[in-house]
């Protein structure tokens, strides 16, 4: 067993420790709850904890399988996210072929490019080639009705669900001096920092939050935001041993990912409000869809990737 594998196992067991604590906490609360009084808050919490068990198990297994496992997991996450997104967007029959291409050509190609580490290609493939080519396919069918809306919404779907999500596995293609094959651990770092920061942001926001960041859009508060940010930076600093960033660098990278993640999930909330839905789908019990669960990671990934590339390679 090499050091990367043992680090992944250590992180997995650490996460399982946190999950066991959360599960035990829930069970104690449930045991103290009178049987005849339903408590929806507690039920939601327990379903969420169960979904987290699944997530940790999936991501842990994928990390242990190495590159093929990670690629498959995130390609599937992209597929599920794109499906949720395009179910809600404006489209006409004239877009059928371009949407089919988005699912069955653009998405797999992006992951092939990421898998081979062709940086020059996967960073421009969607924003240049897909964005220019797919509207042509739609235009050829000759239906101008709400054309710009249809094209723009499809492009946002690809940007968020494929381009951004694929930047998580793209972290593996970074060649960082003295870090070697350990770059797979950057994925664990990003996901843990952002998701735990999210969770604590939610917790503090509920507990002591007063000033809404964007009233009418989301219950997120500035108090929750700052405490979540500090928590993410502390967690990042504590996890600095799996990164090439050093103590201060890890805290700053975690902070950057957390800020982008929090405001990214505001963007996702705005899109949901615009489309009049509460959740993107119902694929993950208690959490909604893949986009609901991953919104902050999705936005943080490309920025985290670019910062790492700029400062550490």
């Amino acid at each position, binding site marked *: 067993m090499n050091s990367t594998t043992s680090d992944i196992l250590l992180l997995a067991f650490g996460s399982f420790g946190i999950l066991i604590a959360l599960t035990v906490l829930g069970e104690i609360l449930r045991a103290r709850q009178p049987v005849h009084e339903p408590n929806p808050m507690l039920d939601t919490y327990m379903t969420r904890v169960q979904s987290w068990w699944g997530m940790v198990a999936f991501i842990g297994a994928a990390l242990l399988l190495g590159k093929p496992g990670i690629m498959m997991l995130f390609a599937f996450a992209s*597929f*599920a996210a794109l*499906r*949720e997104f*395009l*179910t*809600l967007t*404006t*489209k006409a*029959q004239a877009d*059928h*072929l371009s*949407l*089919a291409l988005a*699912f*069955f050509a653009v998405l797999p190609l992006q992951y092939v490019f990421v898998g081979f580490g062709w940086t020059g290609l996967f960073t421009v493939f969607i924003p240049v080639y897909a964005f220019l080519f797919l509207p042509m396919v739609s235009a050829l069918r000759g239906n101008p009705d709400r054309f710009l809306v249809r094209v723009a919404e499809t492009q946002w779907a690809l940007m968020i669900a494929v381009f951004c999500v694929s930047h998580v596995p793209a972290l593996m293609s970074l060649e960082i001096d003295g870090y070697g094959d350990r770059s797979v651990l950057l994925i664990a770092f990003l996901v843990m920092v952002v998701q735990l920061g999210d969770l604590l942001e939610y917790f503090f926001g509920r507990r002591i939050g007063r000033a809404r960041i964007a009233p009418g859009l989301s219950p997120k508060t500035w108090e929750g935001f700052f405490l979540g940010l500090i928590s993410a930076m502390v967690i990042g600093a504590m996890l600095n041993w799996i990164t090439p960033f050093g103590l201060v660098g890890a805290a700053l990278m975690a902070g950057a990912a957390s800020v982008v993640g929090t405001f990214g999930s505001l963007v996702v909330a705005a899109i949901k409000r615009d*489309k*009049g839905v509460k959740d993107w*789908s*119902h*694929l993950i019990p208690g959490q909604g869809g893949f986009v609901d669960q991953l919104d902050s990671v999705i936005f943080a990934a490309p920025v985290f990737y670019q910062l790492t590339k700029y400062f550490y390679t």
Partner: protein
Amino acid sequence: MKFLRQFAARIVGQSIRIFARAITAVRAEWKGIEPVPRQRVYFANHTSNADMPMIWSVLPPAMRRTVRPVAAADYWLKNKLRAFVGPEVFNCVLVDRRPEVKDKPMDKIIAALDEGSSLIIFPEGNRNMTDDPLLPFKAGLYNMGVARPEVDLVPTWVANLTEIMPKGEVIPLPLICTVTFGEPIHVQEGESKDDFLKRASDALLAQRPEARP
């Protein structure tokens, strides 16, 4: 041989269900009824040939075993494969709509109800290829409701299938399909056929997921 065919039918049925789930993540929304085995007639909108397999796929196993889709014999007996899938995988009640045929569709439907089966029917009669959400209902639903008033008639809306597979396209889009089950209705005493069909059609339209801008 019979055993083998039954086994094959089960395998094909499961494959169709898994395929539908994998591509469209099809899910049921139990708005007006509980997913419990009870005799019901699910009446649904009909925009694509995939409607019936979608409804069938979201029913829990106990309900799937007792449900029989009512379908056109001319479609399901066209070739050997369909003749296997329709009657044996989906356990369809095949009705012949030609007027010169002796066994009337309604007799077969009532017979299926009397043996305790639930039914899936498409009261528009044909696939809806228009821009209207529903075509006018045929009288069949009313006749069933009058003949067997105790059976629950459940409005069932299948959403997004037109976008998943518009007419004339070859590749299905993997969008999310939702099947919404509404509150059951019954033919009320003294209610005329037209009034009931109007009420049934409204009840079905009410199950549409909220319209998006």
